[in-house]
């Protein structure tokens, strides 16, 4: 087992990883940018090192400075969290070259999963159903237009190098494509450092359901059930739950098997997620492999009773595992992402200082957050403030706990998604499990983009 781990991330996930390390008796090193000097993740770690200016390209994406910090502090392994360098195969490879353990998949896994186009081709060959898309990255507006015409509008521009909804733009026609292409490229570059885009057929009103995978180095692969991630805004998940109210046991079994097949097809190692789109006729399509710990992993943890970060660390350290036996989920879990965004202003980000902060508590509640009273939200990083998770025996119970918890949760004066989540918890369609990815438009009518 590692004795010291450097956490190459910030925010709630940095705290979450530090907590598991502490329980495993592993020392931690936090890294931070100049904009994050007052960030909570520094306080939970045993040591902390500044790795550069606020711009994440010069700090959280700066591999050289991260390695320097790891060498100076004597860290043995690096946990990349999610986002930033988590899915960079060159970073993972450099970690290993420099003698550090990389807590995540193999560089080869990351290379395949990170190239959405190659991944899709491999899935197709393995017999996993896929969505029609461009045969390679589109380097220019002209190429994007040719591919879009071949596939047929509406199309989606997506990041070839990273997930999380960054850079995704739906284009109804060639004019929209011409306007959105450069902006999507900017967003993608800012988030992943790789501006490559590809085009995919836009499937209207699907469900988004993913399966958690764990695999050891010998190829023993299991799935830990699904996460229903259909409720999204701007292609970013807002509410996740496990299990999915939509899946029949037959469909769950088919998709679970497909997820394991997908992971095995690329000799996947460690924790990962296979994302699917499911249409109204119960057809499911492989969307992408998320080769990292997911933001929404806690709902799997609470239903399965398993700490996924500890599993990641154990697997990466080479600890003989042998416990990759399927687990039975217990009860129902829901996660609400509390973002610093104003749902009434088209989810515009809301930077500012947290002057009022009262976290909720009680039975069946988990709160993963880096907030504290007086914390000034940096403009440089994403708007996720907290992940609020409720767990109960039934979906109805989990919704009731979530509602009560949201009512208790006070964050101000920064606008957050709390009032929106409350509306959703009260919505009859949500309560009935009757929704698709366009659900949010019903709660917040989309404002015109002109």
């Amino acid at each position, binding site marked *: 087992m590692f004795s010291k781990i450097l956490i190459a991330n910030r925010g709630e996930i940095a705290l979450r990883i530090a907590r598991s390390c502490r329980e495993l008796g592993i020392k931690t090193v936090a890294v931070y940018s100049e904009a994050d000097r007052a960030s909570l993740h520094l306080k939970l770690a045993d040591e902390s090192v500044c790795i550069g200016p*606020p711009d994440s390209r010069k700090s959280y994406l700066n591999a050289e400075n991260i390695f320097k910090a790891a060498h100076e502090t004597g860290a043995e392994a690096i946990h990349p969290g999610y986002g930033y360098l988590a899915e960079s195969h060159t970073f993972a490879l450099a970690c290993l070259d420099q003698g550090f353990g990389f807590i995540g998949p193999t560089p080869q896994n990351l290379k395949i999963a990170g190239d959405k186009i190659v991944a899709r081709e491999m899935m197709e060959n393995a017999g996993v159903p896929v969505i029609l898309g461009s045969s390679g990255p589109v380097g220019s507006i002209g190429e994007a237009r040719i591919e879009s015409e071949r596939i047929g509008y509406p199309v989606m521009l997506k990041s070839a190098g990273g997930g999380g909804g*960054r850079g995704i733009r739906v284009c109804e026609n060639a004019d929209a494509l011409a306007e959105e292409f*450069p*902006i999507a*490229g*900017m*967003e993608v*570059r*800012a*988030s992943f450092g790789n*501006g490559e885009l590809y085009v995919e057929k836009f499937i209207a009103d699907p469900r988004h359901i993913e399966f958690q995978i764990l695999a050891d180095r010998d190829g023993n692969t299991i799935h830990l059930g699904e996460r229903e991630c259909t409720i999204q805004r701007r292609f970013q998940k807002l509410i996740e739950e496990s299990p999915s109210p939509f899946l029949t046991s037959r469909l769950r079994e088919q998709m679970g098997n497909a997820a394991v097949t997908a992971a095995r097809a690329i000799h996947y190692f460690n924790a990962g997620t296979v994302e699917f789109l499911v249409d109204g006729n119960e057809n499911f399509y492989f969307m992408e492999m998320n080769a990292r710990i997911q933001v929404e992993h806690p709902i799997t943890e609470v239903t399965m009773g398993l700490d996924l970060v500890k599993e990641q660390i154990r697997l990466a350290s080479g600890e003989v595992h042998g416990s990759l036996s399927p687990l039975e989920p217990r009860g129902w879990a829901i996660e609400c992402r509390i973002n*610093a965004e104003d749902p*009434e*202003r*088209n989810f*515009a*980000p*809301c*930077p500012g200082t947290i002057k009022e902060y009262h976290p909720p508590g009680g039975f069946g509640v988990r709160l993963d957050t880096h907030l504290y009273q007086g914390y000034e*939200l940096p*403009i*440089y*990083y*994403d*708007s996720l403030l907290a992940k609020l998770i409720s767990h109960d025996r039934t979906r109805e119970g989990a919704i009731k706990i979530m509602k009560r918890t949201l009512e208790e949760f006070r964050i101000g004066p920064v606008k957050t998604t709390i009032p929106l989540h409350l509306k959703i918890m009260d919505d009859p369609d949500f309560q009935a499990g009757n929704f698709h990815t366009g659900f949010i438009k019903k709660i917040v009518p989309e*404002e*015109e*983009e*002109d």
Partner: protein
Amino acid sequence: MNRLEERTLREIEKDNDRKEVRAPMSGIFYRSPAPDQPPYVEIGDIVKKKQVLALLETMKVFQKVKSPAAGKIVEIAAVNETALKDEELMFVIEVE
């Protein structure tokens, strides 16, 4: 026009024919759609109403800064790739 835009394009009229375009929130100001591309507008450019003038990046989201009116760009007050505070001046437009 959405509410955000209304704020984005808060029009503080110094006099009848000059409009100030101020940052709707704190964020990083970009004059061009990509580092290797020319700026959206230069001083002296004639712009249409709702024409994109710049991008503002806040918490990883890029928002388009659009012109509140048709006119001529007479001042670009904000510096490319710098952090602006809420309400900081970006452009001054001489309205047609």
